[in-house]
């Protein structure tokens, strides 16, 4: 009799009806969106603050540079000595006083001073410094009799155009995009395995400690129960993931409508500068290229490979988690068996993050994209850079083959382990169980 659908159904509903599962499903998006909204809100509050900076610059050396913006107003103090200026700016609530002494151009750079009540923000000072440096540099160049327009004309941007021998064009932006896809896919798999693998393990331990296990396996084969558990928990996991995506989307819409918070405002000043630079025609063409690159990615290959490697990798690891759950009596005993499971997973992510980025088709990347315990993550990271189809199929075949073997081994450990109570088994005993 095939009871797999019945078991999957029970495992799914047991998980989904669980209070902590429901709470996590709804609370996580609220927390994520809430924190993002808070950051966005705080950033916008910070940006709204207008700083007034007093400037004492008798020689008007920096007048051209210190142009007031929406957030920073430069107030020029005329005909005043330094002491009066300090007093005035400390009493009228200025952010600070910038003093540019009236000395020769060669010496002025050492003598510019900024007075303030509290130490000024680092980013403010560094942006001030870079502005002044640039301007003084230009002034000096003029002093030396250099034609600035020639310097401007001599500036050169280089962007090496990349093209494979087959004639496929790529670019830095494209590489970045590929990396992004690989990283997202790899990390998603990693997180999914850890979270829901653990959940499978706990549910096996629960059946052992509640002693229902013997009743159930007198009706169904242990391997059916194990597979039912893996599939049921995975479906619950996918449901939770889907809920998170939808809820995050809906909540962020609600947040931006109700509170008027623009989530895109949650960015650092660097990002703002990048956005500013977008208006630059050079970068703009890069952006268009990015979109072109996106369209030129082997989308179908990526999606299909993602689904297959994700399923393969997840099932491979979750059968191991089920076996660990069967081998022990309680969660604290799982530690010693977790390490050999987590290690290859970590290795895969590190290889993905360092080696694949450096050299996607190097020998190490290639090797680990074949080894079944690392291949799902590493191969997913490699595929955007173009992996021949036969390599993908070979890696997938190895993965499926080792999945079958792992399930077989896990089922043996599971079959014996679920009826063992009391002492924590050693690796040696686990090996013995395989022969029972």
């Amino acid at each position: 009799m095939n009871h797999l659908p019945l078991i999957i159904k029970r495992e799914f509903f047991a998980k989904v009806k669980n209070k902590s599962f429901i709470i996590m499903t709804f609370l996580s998006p609220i927390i994520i969106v809430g924190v993002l909204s808070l950051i966005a809100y705080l950033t916008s509050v910070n940006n709204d603050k207008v700083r007034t900076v007093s400037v004492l610059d008798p020689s008007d050396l920096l007048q051209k540079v210190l142009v007031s913006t929406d957030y920073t107003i430069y107030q020029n103090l005329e005909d005043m000595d330094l002491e009066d200026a300090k007093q005035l700016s400390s009493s009228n609530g200025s952010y600070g006083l910038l003093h540019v002494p009236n000395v020769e151009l060669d010496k002025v750079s050492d003598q510019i001073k900024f007075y303030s009540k509290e130490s000024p923000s680092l980013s403010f000072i560094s942006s001030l410094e870079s502005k002044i440096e640039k301007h003084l540099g230009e002034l000096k160049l003029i002093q030396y009799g250099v034609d600035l327009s020639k310097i401007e004309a001599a500036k050169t941007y280089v962007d090496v155009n990349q093209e494979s021998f087959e004639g496929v064009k790529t670019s830095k932006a494209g590489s970045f995009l590929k990396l992004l896809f690989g990283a997202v896919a790899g990390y998603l798999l990693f997180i999914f395995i850890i979270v829901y693998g653990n959940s499978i393990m706990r549910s096996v331990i629960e059946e052992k400690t509640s002693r229902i296990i013997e009743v159930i396996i007198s009706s169904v084969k242990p391997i059916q129960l194990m597979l039912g558990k893996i599939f049921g928990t995975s479906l619950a996991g996918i449901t939770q993931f889907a809920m998170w995506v939808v809820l995050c989307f809906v909540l962020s819409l609600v947040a931006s409508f109700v509170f008027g918070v623009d989530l895109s405002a949650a960015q650092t000043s660097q990002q703002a500068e990048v956005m500013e630079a977008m208006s630059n025609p050079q970068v703009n063409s890069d952006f268009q290229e990015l979109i072109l690159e996106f369209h030129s990615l082997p989308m179908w290959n990526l999606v299909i490979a993602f689904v297959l490697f994700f399923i393969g990798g997840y099932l491979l690891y979750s059968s191991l988690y089920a076996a660990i759950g069967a081998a022990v009596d309680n969660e604290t005993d799982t530690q010693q068996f977790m390490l050999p499971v987590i290690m290859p997973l970590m290795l895969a992510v590190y290889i993905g993050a360092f080696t694949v980025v450096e050299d996607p088709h190097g020998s190490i990347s290639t090797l680990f994209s074949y080894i079944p315990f690392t291949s799902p993550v590493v191969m997913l990271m490699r595929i955007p850079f173009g992996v021949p189809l036969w390599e993908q199929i070979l890696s997938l075949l190895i993965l499926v083959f080792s999945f079958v073997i792992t399930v077989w081994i896990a089922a043996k450990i599971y079959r014996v382990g679920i009826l063992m109570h009391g002492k924590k088994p050693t690796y040696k005993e686990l090996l013995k169980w395989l022969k029972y």
Partner: protein
Amino acid sequence: MSILLEANNISKNFGDFQALSDVSIQVPKRSIFGLLGPNGAGKTTLIRIINQITKPDAGQVILDGEPLTPEHVQYIGYLPEERGLYKSMKVGEQALYLAQLKGLSYAQAKKRLSYWFEKFEIAHWWDKKIQELSKGMAQKIQFIVTVLHQPKLLIFDEPFSGFDPINANIIKDEILYLRDEGATVIFSTHRMESVEELCDHIALIHQSKKILEGKLNDIKRTHKTNTFEVGLSANDLVQLKSEISSRFKFSKADFRSLEDDLKLNIQLGAKDTPRDLLAFLNENAQINHFVEVIPNANDIFIQTVNNN
């Protein structure tokens, strides 16, 4: 007498440990078959092999004339010694799930469950979670789930543990009722008084080997020593004792009586019949008490285990 379940030459090793060695049993239809043995003898392993939880290294199990296949699980109801239910699942849902695993349809399971829940007067437990019930209450649910699919063969491993005497009695009556309705029961226990009460047949397993099997009454017959417990009164008890000792072997007996009797266990010689003994005693004394000593299951158990 037709046989429902036959286990033929079952052997099972766990690594170096021998759990069962060439064990065969025959469980007749409509019998209550006691599977006895000290702790660690191999009873649970044998039961798990019958339930196809464990595979034997050698030997075969035959149910109703067919070698066991996975399809047969629906004909067997098993109440393991180590038992429990999903703690956070509702009673009704859980019972339905377990019944469906045994091959019942949802509708069948629901109908039969409501019958049993009415019978045990526990219908109001349906929506409770197991963790809200006491151990005895959970055991009742477990019993219902075991018998719900009306299996031909019921296997109970220490069914009375966890029940108070009143509920244990209810369960005992149910087991007898199920047997009368046509089920065959394998019953594994340490409690010898329930063996006396329930079992028609027994098998005794000791150190992985079967050392005794048969009808309980037949076994008692072969284990009896032709000894009679007698209470006698006479004028001269000392003389009476010497008269008896010239003819029979005897030992002191101990039982409650009203008279100040001579209490003896008298063993018959090879050619003697009870009639000879009665006639002999009747000549020499007044007989107040005359009972054949029949070994109880407990004695047989201890005696057989010690002899092996």
